[in-house]
């Protein structure tokens, strides 16, 4: 294997030596080297507005003892720079000493191919396709007044050098295709946004005219919203559609089950392991091992192989998501959730693909059972306050439900709920589990990482809807 350090002024042997010497008296740590190439092409207002190519190479050197983390990163890869970092780590940890835990699981897991999605499709064909998407979306209706389409591709190669010379690596492709359509009718303006992606080449997602479906969906959402009426305000029953609305799960319980918040006892869930936190029939997993998914990883950013972690089983809280630091301090093992945005960021427990498994009810049954409520089909972003447990997400496509029937579309509204109690309010779990189309990015402490979500249709007894209609 050729190391990422190959063309740098720092030899692997020298790096090994500095790493081992620095981490000898620490509990844990590693040198993380990352080489990322990325390309973004944006079509906006009928023109290719920008084509940007980024090449980023750098290292992050981490030493951990007890619960103290020392981190130093740089994009100057040289012996001198690494020695400076080493001195910096040593000075932070000068009053602590630990025993290095060299144990790390091995894996042959191959969840995606070692491909370069930037090079595998020519610039010319990418530009041509973006132009086609623009023309196709505008041809759908004369009410389409604005179209923005973009292609993002990335190839991130990482290498982890642990004390003792162990070297772990992963090559991670990622693409994302986004489409936004604005329609204007009778003086009203609405947008529809849709995207797809994952860890394969562009053509896997765009072939068989699949790109037209992306445009169709963005247009459909915008066109639905142009007819929307003001959303009701207050508590009511909510039926969630399958797939992407699972960002509810991500916000309502996902973040609260990350190891760091629970080790620090700042999560509303920290003392609830073994207790009932959701209705019977609700099982939630965080799975890093699904082929080609946006949130999947062969190994996490500490080198631990990812796994399928059961968080909640039939309503009972089973496990938290752990990185090595929090696992060690909580006397358990890393679940392969240690992630970072890049070499410029420290590792934290983060979600991968967070999924609620399917149940037995049909979406039709759910809607039929509601006298007054809303049916939420698609969402924009969400956010949570870990400590109080309050979370929100924004509907981008929703309808009123009146007397068991789906009625008129309603304007985008924020839904707010309480994490620990909202999962107990789940009345029905659908038999139509679906994964999201591959577009999620999760933010935590200023770091964004690609994630996936999935769920079946759900009937929730009670949520507060942030509308304007009393």
């Amino acid at each position: 294997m050729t190391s990422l350090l190959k063309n740098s002024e720092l030899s692997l042997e020298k790096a090994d030596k500095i790493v081992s010497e620095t981490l000898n008296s620490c509990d844990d740590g590693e040198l993380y080297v990352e080489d990322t190439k990325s390309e973004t092409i944006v079509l906006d207002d009928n023109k290719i507005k920008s084509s940007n190519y980024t090449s980023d190479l750098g290292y992050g050197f981490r030493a951990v003892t007890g619960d103290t983390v020392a981190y130093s990163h740089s994009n100057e890869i040289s012996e001198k720079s690494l020695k400076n970092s080493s001195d910096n780590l040593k000075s932070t940890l000068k009053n602590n000493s630990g025993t290095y835990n060299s144990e790390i699981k091995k894996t042959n897991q191959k969840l995606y191919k070692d491909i370069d999605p930037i090079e595998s499709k020519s610039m010319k064909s990418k530009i041509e396709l973006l132009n086609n998407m623009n023309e196709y979306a505008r041809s759908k209706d004369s009410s389409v007044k604005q179209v923005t389409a973009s292609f993002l591709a990335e190839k991130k190669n990482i290498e982890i050098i642990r004390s003792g010379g162990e070297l772990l690596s992963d090559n991670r492709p990622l693409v994302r295709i986004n489409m936004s359509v604005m329609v204007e009718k009778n003086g009203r303006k609405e947008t529809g946004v849709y995207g797809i992606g994952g860890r394969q080449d562009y053509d896997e997602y765009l072939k068989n005219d699949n790109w037209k479906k992306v445009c169709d969906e963005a247009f459909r959402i915008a066109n639905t919203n142009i007819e929307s009426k003001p959303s009701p305000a207050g508590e009511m029953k909510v039926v969630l559609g399958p797939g992407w609305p699972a960002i509810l799960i991500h916000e309502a319980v996902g973040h609260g089950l990350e190891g760091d918040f629970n080790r620090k006892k700042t999560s509303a869930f920290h003392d609830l392991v073994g207790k009932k936190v959701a209705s019977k029939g609700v099982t939630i997993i965080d799975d890093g091992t699904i082929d080609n998914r946006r949130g999947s990883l062969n190994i996490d950013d500490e080198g631990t192989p990812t796994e399928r972690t059961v968080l909640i089983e039939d309503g009972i809280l089973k496990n938290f998501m752990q990185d090595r630091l929090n696992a060690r301090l909580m006397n358990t093992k890393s679940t392969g959730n240690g992630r970072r945005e890049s070499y410029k960021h420290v590792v934290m427990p983060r979600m991968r693909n967070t999924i609620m498994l399917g149940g037995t009810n049909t979406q039709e049954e759910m809607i039929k059972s509601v006298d007054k409520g809303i049916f939420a089909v698609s969402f924009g972003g969400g956010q949570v306050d870990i400590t109080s447990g309050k979370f929100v997400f924004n509907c981008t496509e929703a309808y009123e439900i009146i007397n068991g029937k789906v009625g008129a579309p309603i304007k985008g509204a924020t839904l707010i709920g309480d994490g620990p109690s909202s999962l107990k309010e789940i009345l029905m779990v659908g038999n139509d589990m679906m994964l999201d189309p591959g577009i999620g990015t999760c933010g935590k402490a200023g770091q964004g990482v690609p994630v996936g979500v999935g769920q079946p249709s759900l009937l929730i007894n009670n949520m507060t809807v942030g509308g304007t209609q009393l």
Partner: protein
Amino acid sequence: MIKDQAYLKKIADICLSKSKKLGSTDASILVQSSVSENINVRNKKLDGSERSENLGVVLTTYLGKKKSSIASSNLKESNLNELVDRCIETMKITPEDEYNSLPDKDLHFSGLKDLDLYDETHLSNEDKINYIKEAEDEAFSNNKIVNTNGSGFGENKSNFLLANSNGFADGYKTSQFTAYCEVVSKSNGSMERDYEYTSKRFYNDILKPKQLGSIAAEHAVKKLNPKKIKSEKISLIFDKRISKNFLSIFASAISSSAIAKGTTFLKDKLNQKVFNTEININDRGDIKKANGSRYFDSEGIGIINLDLIKNGILQDYLIDTYNGKKINRKSNGRASGTTNLYFENGSKTFSELIKSEKKLLYIKETIGHGTNIINGDYSVGASGIMIENGEFSYPVSEITIAGNLNNIFQNITLADDLEFNYSTNSPTMHVEGMIVGGK
């Protein structure tokens, strides 16, 4: 150590001359160097330290009306050469865009650099730890504070050079000192978190550690044991840390890119009354030592002060070269967005504002991203404190607040308590008649 101008100039020259050699008609380049050191403390104990050294270059090349960009953190000459090659190759096959060009030469910044944006003070890690421990100590002196989410101190120094093939080449150093304290309060089974944050270019201007800790603790304690209220139409008071968000929304709604594309609810509103007549909004880049001050934008265009709203009337947009051409306007130096954006003070005191109605809801935090710039719809999660007869009575949470920005902007009354703590600043704000979603 951050790199000096001579080093940055050397990198810029390599890229600019290589681009020219390969046939680009124009080019612009940004070379940046920064060093930041952060200390995190939790429960009065060192939690972590982080040191980062960043170097980066962003190059944009033009061939007539064709354009392409590359960015890299690897500044080895061999890598730079490879990237410039790539940039030129991509540029050649990118379609023309009639609006692509370097900025107008006449608008390039040239003048004195006397705004005091760099403080060379360097704090040792020990000093940083001491500062932030003192803040946490103070927070914990409040007996309802039981935990911290972590508190931190950061020192950032950076230097940059912006250059283009029209002869512009300028740059300068800036510094930023930042501290935050985030604590957890607990009482009767209720657990809440809140924070205080201070960030200034000069170390001497940030909050003293005791102030930081006591304000954070006070915020977190005031949120304990909240109630959920009934859905109703009620007037809201926005705390200063939230009211400034309306300025950020306003700024994105008047960016020339949104105006040119028509994707904003403020399109075609120039010279019209967007706010009520008492409202004035300014954007000034020339305030000494201020967080948002700068000499020129990311295209090298000198910053002029803008009176964006005068007596409620929209006077100007935020314009860069590219989008300016689309709407037949010259750049006003806002390619990097606003500088120091603020509402001028209103005429009421804070106390008059909270006594202006019998019942008011004071909003201290909003969550979610429920702002639609295209049609002005606004709906977010919120928490705060109920005000009854001018007195803060009980905390409120798990509610939503909603309205349309066209109406919200017309119904704003401001207090006279403006402070320049951030780059975007607002006095306390009263908004009449918004819809609260609750029980």
